[in-house]
């Protein structure tokens, strides 16, 4: 197979993932495993390695995974084509839907539907937040192993989170700082105090 054919096939496969994976980046994972098995472009052990990197770099996991798999299979053009394939179906559908909604902005059924969507959207974000809170401030696995209640709390991250909460809510001067300042500072604090325990 020529390189051009390989790139074309890669783009086509990711376009299919972009159409069928509904519900965000994690929804692409089963498709990525299937693709690896079908084409032998990469192994499922490689998928796990790529996932670990995708979770510890900026950017949404789905895009990071598409880029990584694409690069592994076809170099830089592969990375770009795999990512484009993943996002194009969504982008096109969003634009079509947005145009449709513009026409019906004043329709009372559309407005009534949004009246229900907004609390649902807030609830989904809150639930996702609770999920990250559980993973990053508490350690259930270690607690189950040792039975020691102190192992359940990740003291360092909890103190850091509390300090950030106070700075973003109570102190007038620091309240207006951009989130990037807090993210960068937290990374430094994490490294200095070895918050990951590594």
């Amino acid at each position, binding site marked *: 197979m020529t390189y051009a054919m390989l790139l074309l096939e890669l783009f086509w496969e990711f376009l299919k993932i972009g159409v069928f994976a509904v519900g965000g980046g994690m929804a692409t994972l089963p498709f990525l495993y299937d693709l690896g098995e079908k084409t032998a472009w990469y192994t499922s052990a490689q998928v796990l*390695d790529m996932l670990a990197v995708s979770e*510890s770099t*900026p950017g949404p996991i*789905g895009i990071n995974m598409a880029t990584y798999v694409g690069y592994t299979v076809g170099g830089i053009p592969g990375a770009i084509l795999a990512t484009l394939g993943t996002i194009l179906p969504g982008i096109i559908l969003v634009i079509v839907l947005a145009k449709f909604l513009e026409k019906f902005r004043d329709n009372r059924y559309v407005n009534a539907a949004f009246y229900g969507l907004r609390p649902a959207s*807030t609830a989904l974000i809150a639930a996702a937040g609770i999920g990250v809170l559980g993973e990053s*401030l508490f350690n259930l696995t270690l607690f189950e192993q040792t039975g020691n209640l102190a192992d359940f709390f990740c003291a360092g991250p909890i103190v850091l989170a509390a300090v950030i909460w106070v700075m973003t809510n109570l102190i007038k001067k620091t309240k207006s700082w951009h*989130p990037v300042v807090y993210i960068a500072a937290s990374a430094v604090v994490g490294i200095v105090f070895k918050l990951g325990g590594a």
Partner: protein
Amino acid sequence: MKEYLQLFWAFMKVGALTFGGGYAMLPILQRDIVEHYKWATEEEVMDYYAMAQCLPGIIMVNTSTFIGQHRKGTLGGFVAGFASTVPSLVIITVIAMFLTRFAEYPVVQNAFAGIRACVVVLIINAVVKLWKSAIVDWKALVIVFLPVFALSAFTSVSPILLVVAAAVAGIVITLVSDRLKRGGEAK
């Protein structure tokens, strides 16, 4: 042209500062898109985020496309959606070239433990802000927010199902309260 460049830059920043799933983009959207550029209201961002979950693809890219489209039409949608993926393309390609064991470096693991603790607080703050414009009355709280929150946090019910059910609930609640109001006036 300048406006497209501005869109590109703003959504590249959103992509670079989203750590984790699509929900992690909310604090940046509120700060940059709603408060700084004023390209969308808090309510619009929530609408887009909810719809983005139900469409195929990546939630962050879909949400960015909605906002870009709202601001500058079809081309604006493409620019915003694509811009949000640029940081990933660059960072992952560099890591794939040179640092294949990236996730195992202690420095990376420690930095990420710090970043995750920070993201937790930023999301809590984002939810508190959203709360004010989303939970407009007790019906929104009791009929939509609480059930969706409980189902999403404690079961594996698909978020798509929850969003669709919430839209239907919104229509039913509005129709019923309209009818009750009219009934009240008739008496």
